[in-house]
């Protein structure tokens, strides 16, 4: 058995995880999120500098939790893309250094495949086929997933404009709520009436693509609603607007995810990404999956957001599938599309 060290630095979280044979043995997470608050979002240079400071302590912390030492590490897996280039460089450089120093194989993996793998650490291997909804600040995607490392990952749909998490951040700006917008809107919505404002459910019309996502128009509808009230000198009911907006996002996401399961005759829905931590998204998914006879798998919040354990999980699958390791010249690929979990040596297309 091989202990795999996973490294994730694609955005503002420095994540390290240690996985062996599908079991998470230790992990560590260092976030530079607080340093980005005053900018209303992640600033690449700040994130990259924070990764440089955090990466080695995070590796040591994860090893300590696992009761292991560097000498026990048998392989390294690292997020090589997509993400912020300057941030990715830090993790990839660290991974190459560890792989060289320890003389162990290196795997360059796709960030989104890591998200899909995160759930296997708590709920065991995925079934033969599942639909994965990845919903975060940078992504809103539906994937059709089989064997995570042997089969191609089929990208069913992506947002055509803003990601759902981005809409949360921008609506938070409009409502005068802090960054990051997701938790702020979730908290504000708790005391609000979700049917106070009938915000649109984007791309749910008869002629719209059944699995397509678009959140730009919804964001604008909220901005317009707030402006109209503000211009009239009326009070802006932040809680009601937050709850109504959150309901529109959750309703749209879950509707489309269930439609994808039906369309592809899949019985399991996996939801991951930062927005999967949203209380209304989770509740609505539970309610509708139960009603529709679908198995719902949502990892705990700390595995929903970016982390190193999910990258170690993919690395572990690659090691066990006897995949060829990456060379030490493997580049970062900030805007790589998702087709295979392994970015350096994808299996040959049939």
């Amino acid at each position: 058995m091989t202990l795999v060290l996973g490294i994730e630095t694609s955005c503002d979280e420095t994540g390290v995880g240690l996985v062996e044979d599908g079991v998470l043995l230790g992990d560590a997470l260092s976030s530079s999120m607080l340093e980005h608050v005053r900018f209303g979002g992640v600033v690449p240079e700040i994130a990259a500098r924070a990764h440089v400071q955090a990466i080695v302590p995070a590796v040591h912390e994860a090893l300590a939790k696992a009761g292991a030492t560097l000498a026990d590490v048998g392989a390294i897996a690292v997020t090589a893309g997509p993400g912020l280039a300057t941030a990715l460089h830090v993790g990839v450089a660290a991974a190459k250094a560890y792989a060289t120093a320890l003389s162990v194989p290196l795997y360059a993996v796709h960030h989104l495949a890591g998200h899909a793998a995160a759930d296997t650490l708590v709920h065991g291997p995925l079934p033969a086929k599942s639909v994965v909804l990845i919903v975060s600040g940078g992504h809103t995607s539906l994937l059709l997933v089989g064997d995570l490392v042997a089969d191609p990952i089929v990208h069913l749909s992506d947002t055509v404009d803003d990601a759902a998490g981005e809409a949360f951040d921008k609506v938070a700006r409009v409502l005068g709520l802090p960054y990051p917008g997701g938790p702020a809107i979730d908290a504000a919505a708790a005391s609000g009436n979700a049917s106070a404002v009938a915000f649109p459910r984007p791309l749910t019309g008869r002629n719209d693509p059944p699995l397509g996502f678009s959140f730009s128009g919804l964001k604008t509808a909220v901005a317009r609603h707030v402006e109209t009230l503000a211009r009239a000198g009326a009070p802006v009911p932040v809680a009601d607007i937050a709850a109504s907006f959150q309901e529109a996002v959750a309703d749209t996401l879950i509707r489309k995810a269930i439609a994808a399961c039906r369309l592809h005759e899949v019985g399991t829905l996996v939801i991951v990404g930062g927005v999967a931590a949203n209380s209304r998204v989770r509740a609505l998914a539970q309610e509708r999956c139960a009603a529709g006879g679908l198995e719902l798998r949502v990892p705990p919040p700390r595995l929903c957001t970016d982390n190193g354990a999910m990258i170690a999980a993919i690395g572990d699958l690659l090691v066990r599938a006897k995949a060829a390791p990456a060379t030490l010249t493997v580049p970062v690929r900030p805007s790589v599309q998702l087709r295979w979990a392994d970015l350096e040596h994808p299996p040959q297309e049939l």
Partner: protein
Amino acid sequence: MTMGPRWRPPARTDIRIVEADRGDAGPRVELPTATDTRALGRALGEVLHAGDLIILGGPLGAGKTALTQGIGDGLGVTTGVVSPTFVIARVHLEGRIPLVHVDAYRLGGLGELDDLDLDVSQDESVTVIEWGAGMAEALSDAYLRIDLARADDSDVRTAVLDAHGGDWAARVAEALRARHV
């Protein structure tokens, strides 16, 4: 109405409550639908050269990304042009000229644009910068500034095309003529 956090207006110009009444700096175009916004972008995309800089202004939801989607169309970009907010910049290499699409909302200065380590240089690409007003002008002597605005109570947008230097004024006129054909 339920009680909740008290609303305080956002610090930046994320929304428009009052529009500053400054005279138009260039041609003003009415854009009744998002399709019209994209059509304007496409007409502009067809007259662009390598090295061009376009700076987009306007509040959230004014159509900055939609206009850039049209510019991408006009350049022959086939992959989806989506919001660059999360990654700060997206590079589209498959068109007639590379398209660099930037959201400068979180950039502290122009140095940070270099730090993004983009795959192409400004000279060999078309650079479109959202939220770049007041900062991106220094990137080039000649640039096109487009300010987008939303109407109060309808989906109608307006775009003011403000040509600075070079042959921008002539090319804007050419694009606007093409748009009406």
